């Protein structure tokens, strides 16, 4: 009761919070509402003049294709990044205190490099690789996956690491004392404990890869252009109203993903990882 009274006095905090939420969600809602406007010509009007779902039926084929590319890219990236990140996290947390801080700093480096720079770096790397070895990663799914794995590994290390740091190492010791082999300790004690962290890491890597523009814009070309890059190009050069409908679908997809994630991992995990 006392806490409530204290919060009542804090009208200023409520005001700022309301403004923040309005600012963060307003544009997303505006996109969704504008997509329902039948006479859409890049404007937003409230209330809408004519309600229609016409734009949803008129999404050009190239965006559908780009959506497929993005989904494939994000799934493959998240799978690889989670496997690599989980292994790294086990090594860092359970491998003893020596070098722990240095390892953490090292694995976090990809997040210290501005994304634009990562994009340009991989563009030039692939160019030189193509000259030197003839293998051309530019405009291929593999090229995108490699660059995205590079930036998403830190996320899964973060989520798996935070679960592992909280898990009691005595459980493993107990299993060892009771005669379990290292392999069965790993499979039957460690792995089940890691599950929520693994899910959260997958989820983060997926979202980062799925939404990325500054990296993909440099290395996505030809048949493998991701959806955010297509939308970006449309906004930069020639706006198509169908992009509004498409964006709304992306928002709905993100919401479903979050709800699903909450069921699998819970927010406790998603939140501390979000600090990266």
């Amino acid at each position, binding site marked *: 009761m006392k*806490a*409530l009274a204290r*919060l009542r006095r804090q009208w200023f*905090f*409520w005001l*700022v*919070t309301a403004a*923040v939420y309005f*600012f*963060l*969600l307003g*544009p*997303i809602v*505006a*996109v969704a509402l*504008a997509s329902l406007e039948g006479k859409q010509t890049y*404007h*937003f009007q409230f209330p809408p003049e004519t309600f229609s779902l016409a734009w949803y039926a008129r999404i050009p084929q190239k965006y559908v294709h780009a959506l497929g590319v993005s989904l494939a890219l994000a799934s493959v990236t998240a799978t690889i990044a989670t496997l*690599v*990140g989980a*292994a*790294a996290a*086990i*090594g860092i947390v*359970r*491998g*003893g205190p020596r070098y722990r801080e240095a*390892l953490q700093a*090292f694995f976090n*480096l*990809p997040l*210290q490099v*501005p994304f*634009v*720079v990562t994009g340009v*770096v991989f563009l*030039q790397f692939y*160019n*030189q690789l193509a000259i030197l070895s003839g293998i051309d990663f530019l405009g291929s799914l593999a090229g995108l996956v490699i660059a995205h794995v*590079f930036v998403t*590994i830190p996320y899964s*290390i973060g989520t798996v690491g935070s679960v592992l740091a909280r898990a009691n190492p005595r459980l493993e010791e107990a299993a060892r004392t009771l005669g379990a082999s*290292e392999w069965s300790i790993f499979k039957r004690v460690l792995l089940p404990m890691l599950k929520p962290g693994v899910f959260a890491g997958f989820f983060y890597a997926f979202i980062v890869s799925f*939404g*990325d*523009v*500054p990296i993909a*814009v440099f290395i996505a070309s030809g048949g493998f252009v991701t959806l*955010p890059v297509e*939308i*970006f190009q449309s*906004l930069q050069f020639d706006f198509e109203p169908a992009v*509004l409908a498409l*964006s709304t679908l*992306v*928002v709905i997809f993100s919401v479903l993903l*979050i*709800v699903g994630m909450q069921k699998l991992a819970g927010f406790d995990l*998603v939140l501390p990882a*979000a600090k990266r």
Partner: protein
Amino acid sequence: MARDIVKRELTGAARWRLFLWPPLLLSAALLILPQASFVWMSLHKNLGMGLVSPGLVPDNYLRVLSDPFYLGSLWLTFRLSLTATAIGLAAAFPTAYLLARARSRWISFLIVLLLISSFVTIVVKVLGLSLVLGQEGVVNQFLEWIGIVAEPLRMLNDETGVVIGLVQYTLPFLVMLLFSVIQTIPASLEEAAELHGATRLSTFRRILLPLALPGVIAGALMTFNLNMGAFTSAVLLGGGKVLTLPVVIQRKIFLDVDYPLAACLATLLVVMVFLFNVAAALALRRTRHPLRTP
């Protein structure tokens, strides 16, 4: 006996350390190979047509560091990032405080909304901002309707638009980070201060802020780094006039096909961000955590 256990634990740790090697090798390869070839590229001269000079020369760096255009762009990037970070902190701190302290069923719902905002790709959010903030957008219509402004405010296609876009991009992350920081500070400390007659301002200044400071600085750095590397909002909300370093780099690649110069500018950006972080870390080391002072 005790020695035996220690020995056994060590072998356990050594086994777990084996897990490190594949990620370590992969990450090192992905970090070092591209970056090295990149810095190497920045030391070449552009000969046009995608060709570069054979020898290593510092020409690009000399050119960039003596050209007011590039220095101006660097300063602009720095200034906008700092402004957006300051605005973000001012908005995120009260929000995070409320989310961390309020005991209401709605809080978890509000956090879901925050997650949604942070996971919707930035291009969609920028699209929304340009719909809402334009000269004939709802925000201007509303402001004119309540009579605050006589003419539509110009919020897009200049630096204001870019800063708004940057704040939109980083704010959800910052709120989440500060939320988890403030949650670790016991509310009882603030209550105790108030019981002893501290005003709310002095409770904030002398209890909350010092305890939250390491987290606030970490959040500010994260936001600043994201801002320095963001170019989606600069391209789409700056109307092609706000040439921050990321935008210039993108143009060098796509319009001028001058890879060496782009590599040089990008190296400069990384070095700037890195130096800023090191400087902040050094400054942070001096401000001790208040609970740990003997």
